[in-house]
């Protein structure tokens, strides 16, 4: 609401889902995981998506994060229809526009924080010098300036998740997509990460936070509830 309040109705729509369905088909079964989802997210919003286990939160995030195509319906991201794009195009859009944060951090083992953070830039062809520069800067901004050379197994859970946040931010993406980012953290460390999100949001970053804990979701400007594949109230 913060940014929206300031800029009013002129704020651009970043994400628009129209009648999005996702049906998983196996040989014998088909499962309707998302049913006619309509959703609009504006630039600078901090959205919380809640819902019980198996309700379709991660499925929705995979579509929003361009990891998967909807079975039907349209997804417009930043004014571009991205519902039926090929693997290559999706990969480069993901690289530019999406920053992922996972429950289990997903850092590369045996690899320093500095190198983990640079990973997305490797695929956008940024030179080693510039990558180093940007990675150091972004790690400092999440408070890990003294852990540049540390490997994941030398970092605490909270620190690992900060490295993951830094990695998600390094391409300066349109959206930060976090699926249960605090699921593997204790409540104190989890709160730190949520506070980091809040700070980032204040600086204008659009954040979509998926969680099944209402107490965490309430940090968002707007909470969307999913139940049995449908957006509820």
């Amino acid at each position: 609401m913060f940014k929206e309040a300031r800029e009013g109705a002129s704020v651009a729509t970043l994400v628009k889902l129209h009648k999005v369905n996702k049906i998983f088909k196996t040989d014998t079964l088909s499962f309707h995981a998302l049913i006619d989802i309509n959703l609009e997210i504006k630039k600078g919003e901090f959205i919380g998506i809640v819902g019980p286990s198996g309700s379709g939160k991660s499925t929705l995030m995979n579509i929003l994060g361009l990891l998967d195509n909807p079975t039907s319906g349209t997804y417009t991201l930043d004014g571009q229809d991205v519902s039926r794009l090929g693997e290559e195009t999706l990969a480069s859009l993901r690289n530019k526009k999406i920053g992922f944060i996972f429950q289990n951090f997903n850092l590369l083992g045996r690899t320093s924080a500095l190198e983990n953070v640079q990973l997305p830039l490797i695929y956008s062809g940024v030179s080693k010098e510039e990558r180093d520069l940007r990675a150091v800067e972004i790690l400092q901004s999440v408070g890990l300036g003294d852990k540049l050379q540390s490997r994941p197994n030398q970092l605490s859970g909270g620190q690992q998740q900060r490295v993951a946040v830094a990695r998600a931010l390094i391409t300066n993406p349109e959206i930060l997509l976090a699926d249960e980012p605090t699921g593997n953290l204790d409540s104190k460390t989890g709160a730190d990460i949520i506070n980091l999100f809040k700070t980032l949001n204040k600086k204008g970053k659009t954040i979509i936070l998926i969680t099944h804990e209402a107490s965490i979701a309430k940090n968002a400007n707007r909470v969307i509830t999913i139940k049995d594949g449908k957006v509820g109230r």
Partner: protein
Amino acid sequence: MNIFETFKLAFKSIIANRLRSSLTILGIVIGVTSVILLVALVSGLKSFITAQISSFGANVMYVIPGRIGGGRGPGGSQANRLTFQDANNLRVALGGDAEVSASIQRTSTLKYQNKTDRDVTIAGVEATYFKIISALKIDKGRFFTFSEANSGKRVVVIGPTVVKNLFGGRDPIGEYISVGNLKYQVIGVVQPRGANFGIDLDNVGAISVVAAQRQFGEDRVQNILISAKTPELIKSVQSEAVKTLKKRLTEDDFTVQTQEQTLSTISQITGVLTAALGGIAAISLIVGGIGIMNIMLVSVTERTREIGLRKALGAKPKDIRLQFLIEAVTLSALGGIIGIILGIAFSLLVNIFFQTTITWWSIALSFGFSVLVGVVFGVAPALRASKMNPIQALRYE
């Protein structure tokens, strides 16, 4: 992602799994090492034989028993029918165009006082032999004469090793040594020629053919050497020799082979040998390639989450494909490089005992082949990795 960084990444992952990587490339290492070593051995053998034969002089040809290049193999099952008479017939027929010497070779034990020299090559030759074999040079004393040779006089010309073993370096000229049970007078010593393939070219003694036939109870000769006076005469001397020999023998009984023909026969034999040994070594390269494929497939499965993550962060299928392909190629090329180093090292080591000639083409070929093996066997794992679904890959435990 650029190629250079992909290589760096491949090295990192190879080094991270040091032990596994070393075991994986072992097949390639062994393959490349053996290609280089075996080819070096065969090439060494070839250049040794070639040098030996060439030292006989370019105008030399041999009459050898049996028929080469006919239906039967060299020597065949045919009994040797060459005699000293054939050498004499050739001498008469060829006249001033060529020198002729019959020859017999045996291994025998020489004795002088209480000293013994075993496994001495005794060559029964004619006086002309020393003119034909230009590499044989007298050091002390003299070669034997026509009359000494024809009468079978028991005189001997010995090599430096025999001098060392029997006389401890003392002057042997005029002394009597025993060959088997018979005594021979030493009349000359030849200059040293060295040793190779375990054969000491200086542990030799030359006696006349007539003496050798008596000594060894032999009525045949092993071969007849003919040396044309000029290169231009080689062809005509060869055909005249064949014509002369056919008066007494059938064409299955002998072959007159020029130096050129001998060298090309040796080339053929070593070529076949190289191909056979190289082929066996190449099989081990292919086995090595299968090893690499196996490990790469394991590695792809193990790194499913990494692949999913990289894809989520923007890696295209072709980036992933390249990453794993380059890893396989780096592994096999590394195996190739280690194999080259070991192959050269072993060849140099073996060179102390047997002459080896390291050939550049064998290094280039085996390295090229090992890289090719990496590409061929790296494709399947790389394709599997690039086709992974990022969502499922990220969920993989």
